[in-house]
């Protein structure tokens, strides 16, 4: 074909390159833009590594395919020339019969050459370029939209996080919150604590009607949980009191208070899901016997010893009152303490002081006075311990209930405390400042239950005779380990748990 044909073909090639380039750019921008938009709208961090390689890959692939499809072969050029310049297939015929002989073929070739020579190469247009320009413009718009959509710039890669996502509050959650409020109202919490907790829960319920993000909802639920904490930890708790006595050298009394305080915690393993179940058990017997033993033991230390002069006994009492209860009284002079264990202990301290001030009392009078005080305050301490422990457990119960109702917000449940086998106490709430979000792991499956008789029975594991309660406790500890970690079905777990609930009296048939 003549020179003009080659020139036109060259121009068509340039056109194909331009169109392919536009196609590549359009594909790349559209791909990157769509991915970026999808990430942002889906709340995923739009990292540049997600969309840029995809855009480049799409651009390269589409550009290559487009050029391969659009590349002008001689045949395509001839067809295009015939179509665009109405040559009635002259160029195609001349190309197809280029090497052939024949009278008409020869003339046809000559005439086609004439026609081609007459064409203006500069007038050759780039076909379909407007379509590709339009596609490029659309793709650019998509890419710009992807960058402009709120949620962060493409380079920062910051899209909406989980906390910014609108919280989805279900009807079921509201119902469970209402049930929790009802349960707290039914409970035996003190009126002040009850009122404070229900007020906080009611406020949370009202706030659920607002449009909240996950972050805002989590804050409001945490506020309600902290309200439960502060409401139930009013006054000096037994762990803090035990700590004071330990600091003052009264380890026995400290231990006694801790024993009593840990009482209801032992039941928590079975019954922590039901606030009211704590009160099915008689509170008086709910306090660990260790408290009584410890308290009595402390009393014995202040009793008159054989041959001891009354004055010496008084001095001993005075000393105890001065150091232990004087210090404690100072520590407990907080005007906010109006009830609970702290108040009882402060009154107990004042009573001992008053007793010790009577230095002229006879021995019998002194001992009787000591017995009266100890006898009176023992019951009051037990009551206070029960109430306080119940209150602390109730606070934990409410915190756990809120964590379970809003389980999508990432709160951690406070697991049940178990009594260690060596009898050492474990601070239930940790210094009275527990926020309820920590994971207080229980013991190593060595929990035990209060209840049962002190009769001795044969222990097949040790081959000796031991108290029935101790054997049962050991057996229960083993069972607990198997129940918590073993491969048993839910039905089996429930049956075993129920058996021990009946055995230890925490559940009535």
């Amino acid at each position, binding site marked *: 074909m003549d020179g003009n044909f080659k020139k036109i073909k060259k121009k068509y090639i340039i056109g194909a390159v331009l169109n392919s380039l536009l196609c590549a750019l359009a594909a790349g921008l559209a791909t990157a833009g769509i991915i970026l938009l999808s990430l942002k709208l889906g709340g995923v961090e739009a990292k540049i590594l997600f969309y840029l390689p995809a855009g480049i890959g799409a651009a390269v692939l589409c550009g290559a395919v487009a050029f391969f499809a659009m590349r002008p072969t001689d045949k395509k050029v001839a067809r295009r020339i015939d179509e665009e310049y109405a040559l009635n297939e002259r160029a195609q015929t001349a190309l197809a019969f280029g090497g052939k002989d024949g009278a008409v073929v020869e003339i046809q070739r000559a005439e086609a050459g004439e026609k081609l*020579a007459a064409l203006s190469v500069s007038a050759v247009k780039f076909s379909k370029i407007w379509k590709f320009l339009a596609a490029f413009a659309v793709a650019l718009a998509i890419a710009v939209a992807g960058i402009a959509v709120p949620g962060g710039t493409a380079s920062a890669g910051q899209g909406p996080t989980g906390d910014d996502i609108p919280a989805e509050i279900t009807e079921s959650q509201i119902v469970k919150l209402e049930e929790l409020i009802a349960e707290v109202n039914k409970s035996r919490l003190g009126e002040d604590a009850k009122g404070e907790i229900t007020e906080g829960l009611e406020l949370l319920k009202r706030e659920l009607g607002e449009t909240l993000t996950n972050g805002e909802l989590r804050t409001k639920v945490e506020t309600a949980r902290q309200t439960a904490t502060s409401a139930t930890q009013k006054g000096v708790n037994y762990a803090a009191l035990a700590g004071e006595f330990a600091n003052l050298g009264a380890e026995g009394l400290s231990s006694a208070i801790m024993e009593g305080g840990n009482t209801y915690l032992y039941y928590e393993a079975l019954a922590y899901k039901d606030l009211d179940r704590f009160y099915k058990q008689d509170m008086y017997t709910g306090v660990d016997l260790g408290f009584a033993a410890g308290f009595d033991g402390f009393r014995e230390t202040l009793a008159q010893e054989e041959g001891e002069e009354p004055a010496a006994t008084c001095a001993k009492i005075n000393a105890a009152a001065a150091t232990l209860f004087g210090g404690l009284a100072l520590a407990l002079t907080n005007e906010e303490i109006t009830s609970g264990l702290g108040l009882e202990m402060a009154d107990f301290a004042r009573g001992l002081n008053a007793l010790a001030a009577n230095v002229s009392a006879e021995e019998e009078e002194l001992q009787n006075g000591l017995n009266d005080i100890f006898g009176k305050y023992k019951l009051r301490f037990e009551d206070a311990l029960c109430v306080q422990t119940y209150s602390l457990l109730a606070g934990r119960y409410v915190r756990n209930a809120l964590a379970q109702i809003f389980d999508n917000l990432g709160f951690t449940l406070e697991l049940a405390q178990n009594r260690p086998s060596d009898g050492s106490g474990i601070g239930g709430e940790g210094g009275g400042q527990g926020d309820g979000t920590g994971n207080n792991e229980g013991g190593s499956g060595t929990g035990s239950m209060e209840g049962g008789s002190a009769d001795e029975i044969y222990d097949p594991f040790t081959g000796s005779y031991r108290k029935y309660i101790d054997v049962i406790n050991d057996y229960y500890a083993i069972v607990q380990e198997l129940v918590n970690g073993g491969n048993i079905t839910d039905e089996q777990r429930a049956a075993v748990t129920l058996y021990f609930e009946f055995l230890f009296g925490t559940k009535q048939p």
Partner: protein
Amino acid sequence: MKKFKKSTEAAEKVELPAGETNGQEENVGQAEAVQNVTAEERPEPVAPPVSEENAQKVKKFSDAVARIRSELKKDVVGMEDVVDNVLCAIIAGGNVLLEGVPGVGKTRLVRALGKTMSLPFSRIQFTPDLMPSDVTGTNVIEKDDNGKMTTVFRHGPIFANLVLADEINRATPKTQSAMLEVMQEHKVTVAKQTYRLSEPFFVLATENPIEQDGTYPLPEAQMDRFMFKLIVSFPSQKELADIVSMTQITMDETAEAVIDGQTILEMRELAKGVPVIDEVLNFAVDLVTNTHPELEGGSAAAKKYVRYGASPRAAQALITCAKVRALMNGNYNVSYADIKALAYPVFRHRIKLNYTAVAEKLTVDDVIKQIISETK
């Protein structure tokens, strides 16, 4: 070596008698339309040289066509398309079926053609009582000069180069079939003796679309042997006026012989060399296949309106006649336009419409038009 110059206003034109064209005007117009270059832009023509002999051949062809057209105009008013198509069929070596009401000039056209081509002409008026031997000829017993009785074959009217089979649908099927062999093979067999007809041989048959009483519709096999079916329509008012004016002067044909049979054969041979690219050939083939409703590739129009599609002869006719048409129009290659234009005369008698088309009052040409539009 002769070079073909660019067709501009100043370009040389083939000298023709006044008022006549050779189809090159179309070429000139097209060339002007595609050019918009300044003298500085225009490169030097680099068309390859053409041999004088070939150039002469092609010139002779176009000259002959031009002369035939001009001569026919003396005796035939209007009917340019019919004249061109008949001429195309003659050069291509095919037969034509003319359909028209009486008096539109069918017979006159054939007579005039015979005169301009210096071809012996005969006319056969088909009637229901016409026998095959009336067409082909028969053996007769004659006494020779020695008084001996011998059998002599008397040639029938079919023994001519240009045969007008007038109202062919009035003949009986037996007589019609006698025409079949002649039209197809250009020979006559009588009493086991075969007589070849001289070339070029051309049958132009006519049909009267009215007066169907007492007629025998041509069978499909015979219809297929006609290359074209042309509709001779009633002349326009101006044409009718010209006819009346002309025949007032004389009713005789005044056209003169301008070519002979040998020239026709040479033109036929030259036309065979017109190049056709594969795309155009495939387009022609696709057109034919698209007329078949039973074929998977059949067009929607065919599936809806056609009962029987065109035979393979239609594809042969399309290409053969397209080559001739291209040359007649001064082009040197077959184009899509040639195929599309020839589709109507080629398919008209080869496609059978179904009742759906009849119910929708569609003509064959309407369906052909749809099929063309659906063929890519």
